[in-house]
């Protein structure tokens, strides 16, 4: 535990232990503090974003014990002992995760504010279903709102990442190559 954390130790608050992106964390915070705020304020993991604070937009999506959760709806006490993955834990050793590469290549990110949550929802989907069809992609991302892209390129990004051996073969992607420059 760092000095600054010990300096503000509150006896009334529980000490909560969990793992974030593979690292053990011990924190002393109000038990009802939102997991979102713990990640952003106490652990300085600001990649996870707040869009609505009521579980509608999915910008704060993280993975907790293999489930996708809206971290704005999770009191941190529920995270005791949990394994949490945030957007900061997607890239491996400085290498972009296949989904991150695919979003970059296919225009899946515009303003970027929904992107961390969208990536986590996409990662969750691909882990459970490595080759989703378009309907499955739409269902899996229905809880993550994007206002920039109209979703087409997000679907394309997820489809391309789901089939790395076919990257570039757009005939296999979920949306047809919808940019016909001529």
């Amino acid at each position, binding site marked *: 535990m760092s000095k600054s954390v010990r300096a503000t130790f509150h006896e009334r608050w529980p000490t909560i232990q969990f793992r974030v992106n593979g690292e053990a964390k011990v924190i002393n915070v109000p038990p009802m503090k939102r997991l979102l705020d713990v990640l*952003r304020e106490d652990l300085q*993991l*600001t*990649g*996870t*974003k*707040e*869009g*609505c*604070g*009521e579980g*509608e*937009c999915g*910008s704060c999506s993280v993975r907790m014990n293999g489930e996708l959760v809206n971290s704005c709806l999770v009191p941190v006490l529920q995270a005791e002992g949990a394994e949490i993955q*945030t*957007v*900061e834990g*997607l*890239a491996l050793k400085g290498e*972009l995760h296949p989904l*991150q590469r695919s*979003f*970059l*290549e*296919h*225009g899946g*990110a*515009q*303003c*970027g*504010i*929904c*992107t*961390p949550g969208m*990536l986590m929802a996409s990662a969750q989907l691909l882990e459970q279903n490595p080759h989703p069809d378009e309907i499955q*992609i*739409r*269902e899996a*991302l*229905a*809880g*993550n*709102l*994007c*206002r*920039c*892209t*109209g*979703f*087409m*390129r*997000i*679907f394309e990004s997820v489809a391309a990442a789901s089939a790395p051996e076919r990257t570039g073969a757009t005939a296999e992607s979920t*949306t*047809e190559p*919808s*940019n*016909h*420059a*001529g």
Partner: protein
Amino acid sequence: MKTPSATRIVGAPVPRKEGVDKLLGRARYVDDIEREGMWHGATVRSSIPRGLIRSIAFDRRIDWTEFAVVTAADIPGENCIQLIVADQPCLADGKVNHCEEPILLLAHPDQHKLREAVGAVRIEYEPLPPIFTIEESERRDVVVWGADNLLKSFLLEKGDVDSAWAGAAHIVEGEYRTGAQEHLYIENQGMIAEYGAENGVTVWGSLQCPYYVFKALRAVFDLPDEKVRVIQTETGGAFGGKEDYPSTLACHAALLAMKSGHPVKMVYDRMEDLAATTKRHPSRVRHRTALDPDGKLLAIEIDLATDGGAYATLSSTVLSRAVLHSTGPYLCPNVRVRATSWATNLVPYGAFRGFGAPQAIFAMERHMDEIAATLGIDPAELRRRNFLHVGDTNATEQEMREPVILDQLLDRALKESGYYAKREQFARSNVKSSIRRGMGLAAFYHGSGFTGSGEAYLNSLAGVDVTPEGNVRVLVSNTEFGQGTNTILTQVAAEALGIDYANVTMAAPDTGIVPNSGPTVASRTSMVVGRIIERACSQLLALLREYAGLGTTYTQKEFLDACERYRATRGEVVSFCRYEAPPGIVWDDQTYHGEAYGAYAWAVYVAQVAVDTVTYSAEVEDFWAVQEVGRVIHPVMAAGQVEGGIAQGIGYALYEKVFSQDGRMANNQMTNYIIPTAEDVPPIHVYFEQIPFQYGGFGAKGIGELPHDGPAPAILNAIRDATGIAFNAIPLLPEDLYAGLAAAEPEEMAAR
């Protein structure tokens, strides 16, 4: 043609400039930033729509000495947000004109205590009668703004409308309405401010137009230019919603910083953002049209009114753009458009993608289908008979000098969508199904850049420089908020300088570093600013050739070596250019005649819609978008802009309704303000025809707003095709569909 046909970087899907940072979650949005000793700020707002402030009391259970409290009395300069008309106070002083109007500001180190404190400020009012509709405002029984509630009016006339009616074979009339729309950028409004006697005011925030905020701060603090600095942070969507409102928020945060002596962060939560910030202007548009026996337009008379809300904000320029798009891409010899914007006691409306054009185009394109139905002409054919062609003049008598390929766009839209075959098929299948399908189309143009004399007035300055470290930087105040500014402008610079895309970066969007290249609005960045950057690059190459021995062909290393030779003998390696109008741009603001826009982007959109006559839901099943936007600088981003605009337009047509109760937004949550999700958007097929515009950056015209113009009329036209019923107002929710269908088919309804 000046634009070279072969380019290395322009037209290529290079990686988004700031893309990796966004994907790794390390891009820094305003709420991700902390400053040493930072406090948080909050706003105490009006709970009534109109009245006098009688008293402000502070609950004694709170220790107010811990707080910084700011009222209008603390404002060192003008208590006014600088925009077009000086009518909107930074903080209400004695009276309020809309719900959520800011009255008092609080700052404290602890956000939780701050929230409690906001609820512990008690304001007593003497209420005055409010008005909430265009009709109430027009009646002037209650005057809430100026002498007559009229924020702005325009009269546009071409030919002789009055003498056209007598000889007309048909006269068709209609009234069309559009509702307010929330931008719903996923990142709420936010700002951090610092204040010091020596450096003045510095703000960091989510915003589109650094120099708008700069101007607002300068006036509120009465400071010289060198003591105001505005820095844009990574911005999570804007759509016009961060054009004007950030000026207010920046002033608020800065006032609290001054009063508290600490950096202050103000980030709205979603409920506050939805309730208190600007939205798209609601509109009421009345059309009266004279036609010859073949359906050719003889006269168009339009009465166009918008609700501007409590203060003038950008209502005059939004109204202007509405006027200039109100007659569509059609040739008509006689036109009269009377346009008015009215004050009400609602939260002021502001900029939103399309800026008046979506409202005007909804009315025109819906009306075209009513004309087609009245005359018994196919809607596509009716449009074709009236399309503008090269050499024709539009409503402002601007001659179309650049290529106009509406016929080609229409042909392609009809072909790609299978329009005629599907209409036939649906006409058959609808008879025996509770799901009724239809096809609808919309044809439209969107003027790129500021209207008329606007670009000349802006006189934008932009440039490129090369740092001693060998970084080539684009120097502009145009900002990235998802739409691709960073990528597009560095593509343009790299192409023009003949160096690698990876070696060109954007200088920080900081008024202490970059010049005023105008606001990031009006679909002007690629075309107008891109062109200035292209010219600044050519100018830099000329300097390097003249003074530093740069050859006609060169490698990147030879380019950078030449820059160093130039630096050694002549100093800073930098090149700036100002906006230059294309030749022949003449505009008369008084008569509203002349070249309204330097260029137009053109489009034909087709929607396939299914109406469920059991549940009364309408679903867009498929969508085709064919457009000519000049040269496409980045094919993936361009298509992404179009797809995103169409999704927003689908929301505008079918989902997004602002429910007001006594002047307050009642559904100010994502739970009940509904936008299209991943399961609601149809497949969107995007097609570009490319005709480089020689006065745009590498041939580009505007693209950002165009796609919001077409979906709503195309969708409602498809619903008319499916049901035979003319729905003339958006948003069209299931209850509206029910009302319309039930009224039209009482027996069928009763039988069910």
